[in-house]
């Protein structure tokens, strides 16, 4: 289509408002975070340039290191357990068993509920006095396993991870849609070659939905690095900072007016996120060349 003079004016007028907002809330803040991470700054008095001191202090702090490790565990759990589970369920639902649409609706339901509401719900589940989990253990006669799940050092972090890892709806829906878009012909050809249903899943479906699996793994890991609400509400990093994550660490430093230091944490979050995204792509791209 030819662009006329009137179109040019229209395009300019249409681009300015959204791009201005994007610049103000994406480009400017990201640059701002990078620049101020090299300053000691409390938000009130003048900022002092300290070069890499914020970063050095970050790596020296065992709580920050713990937070990074927790985030990495979280991201790996998401990518290596949550997404494969979602894939398994998507494969089952793609055969359209009875009521598959109802299952799909139910699986996705937790995704539309806010993280904070889910976290509150699970804090009542885990509660040591009236919680549902201890009650369930009581019903089946395993009273000796009842404990304060979120207050015990050994169980706090696993408890945070586990409740959330089985919410697979988001990735399941993405993979399922990709599977259902595969042409029937592939399966007809495979069954003529004598492949049974499982072989068809392994050798026809999986390679064809590879891209959406990679997408899901990337998204799952990125979400794993961003965790905040759940931790903030369920444990607030405790006991003994064992369950801290990077965003919570950033939030607490910000509350202490260590703005430059908090932004150094933000930069680390962006860098780790970028490494994960690029890493996942590289890992799966290289496999493509081999085969």
């Amino acid at each position: 289509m030819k662009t006329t003079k009137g179109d040019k004016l229209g395009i300019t007028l249409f681009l300015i408002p959204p791009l201005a907002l994007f610049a103000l809330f994406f480009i400017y803040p990201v640059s701002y975070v990078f620049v101020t991470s090299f300053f000691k700054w409390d938000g009130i008095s003048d900022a002092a340039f300290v070069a890499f001191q914020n970063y050095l202090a970050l790596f020296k702090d065992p709580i920050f290191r713990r937070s990074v490790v927790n985030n990495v565990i979280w991201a790996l759990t998401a990518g290596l357990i949550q997404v494969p589970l979602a894939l398994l369920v998507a494969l089952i639902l793609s055969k359209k068993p009875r009521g598959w649409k109802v299952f799909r609706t139910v699986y996705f339901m937790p995704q539309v509920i806010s993280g904070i509401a889910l976290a509150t719900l699970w804090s009542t589940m885990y509660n040591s006095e009236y919680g549902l989990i201890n009650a369930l253990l009581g019903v089946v006669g395993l009273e000796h396993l009842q404990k304060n799940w979120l207050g015990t050092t050994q169980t706090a972090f696993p408890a945070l991870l586990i409740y959330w890892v089985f919410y697979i709806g988001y990735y399941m829906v993405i993979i399922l849609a990709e599977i259902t878009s595969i042409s029937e012909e592939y399966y007809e050809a495979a069954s003529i070659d004598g492949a049974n249903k499982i072989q068809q899943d392994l050798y026809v479906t999986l390679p064809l939905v590879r891209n959406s699996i990679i997408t899901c793994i990337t998204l799952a890991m990125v979400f794993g690095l961003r965790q905040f609400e759940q931790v903030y509400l369920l444990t607030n990093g405790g006991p003994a900072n064992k369950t801290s994550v990077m965003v919570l660490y950033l939030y607490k430093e910000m509350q202490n007016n260590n703005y430059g230091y908090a932004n150094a944490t933000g930069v680390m979050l962006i860098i780790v996120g970028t490494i994960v995204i690029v890493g996942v792509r590289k890992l799966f791209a290289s496999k493509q060349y081999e085969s």
Partner: protein
Amino acid sequence: MAAIDIKLPNEKKTSVETNKHLSVILNVLKWIVLMFFAIYAIFPILWLLISSFKTNAELMSEPFGLPAVWQFGNYLNALKASNLGILFANSVFISIAATCINIMLAGMISYCIARFTFKGKEIIFVMFSAGILVPLNALMVPYFTIVNKLGLYDKHIGLIIVYTAIGIPVSTFIVRGFMNGIPREVEEAAIIDGCGFFKRFFMIILPLSKTGLVTAATFQFLTCWNEFVYSMLLTSSTKVRTIQLGIRYFTNQFSTDFVSMYAAIIVSIIPSVICYMLFQEQIISGLTSGAVKG
């Protein structure tokens, strides 16, 4: 040769039989897996819903039973004790305003990207893709400073602008996808009839991309309704705060009155669930339209 001919049918029979056993086992496993995830997804929410109608004594003594008398009064208690009404109204106002503005802006920029070539189009594309993957939580300090400097701290309009902005990349990708699918001939005919840029956008393109706009709006509304971090960071008074923040404080306000707290949480969930029930197909198509794929 003859021996083989006799043997073959037998072998086939046994392999068919083992296949039958295997498929029965697989079938059972399949339903166990499906039921496990279904119960996991729905049971806690149902439990919360049922518990919100119990008395506190019932909740303690029989956590799994049904309430003897359904206590609708819990919801009245929740409304009275926690400013639930104001928080709810704030969330409705902020989410709807931020969704409307966001969709309008996304429609405008999508139209330019989908239909015209201009300098910097590729850059916009790359930046928006990056924008989807940037961890917004890392930007707490700058968002706080920007909103303060604009004098929008603890104001409805502050949250509306922030929510509008953070949803622009995702909404743009969804809407652009739908606009790409509108045949160009429709618009070319309009040009011959003398329709200008704005008339074509408002009279032809917007109505034809309704499905895309509704999909993007659904995502945007859910994002706004469920957002917590920036609501906490950028507001301080009950007049402005959203219901998500309310949930955080319910836990303190109802430290002994659990059932009222559950009622308050259920109230906060209802709009999301209604939105999901109404627009389920859009949510699924939006997730898979490549919009969220970065």
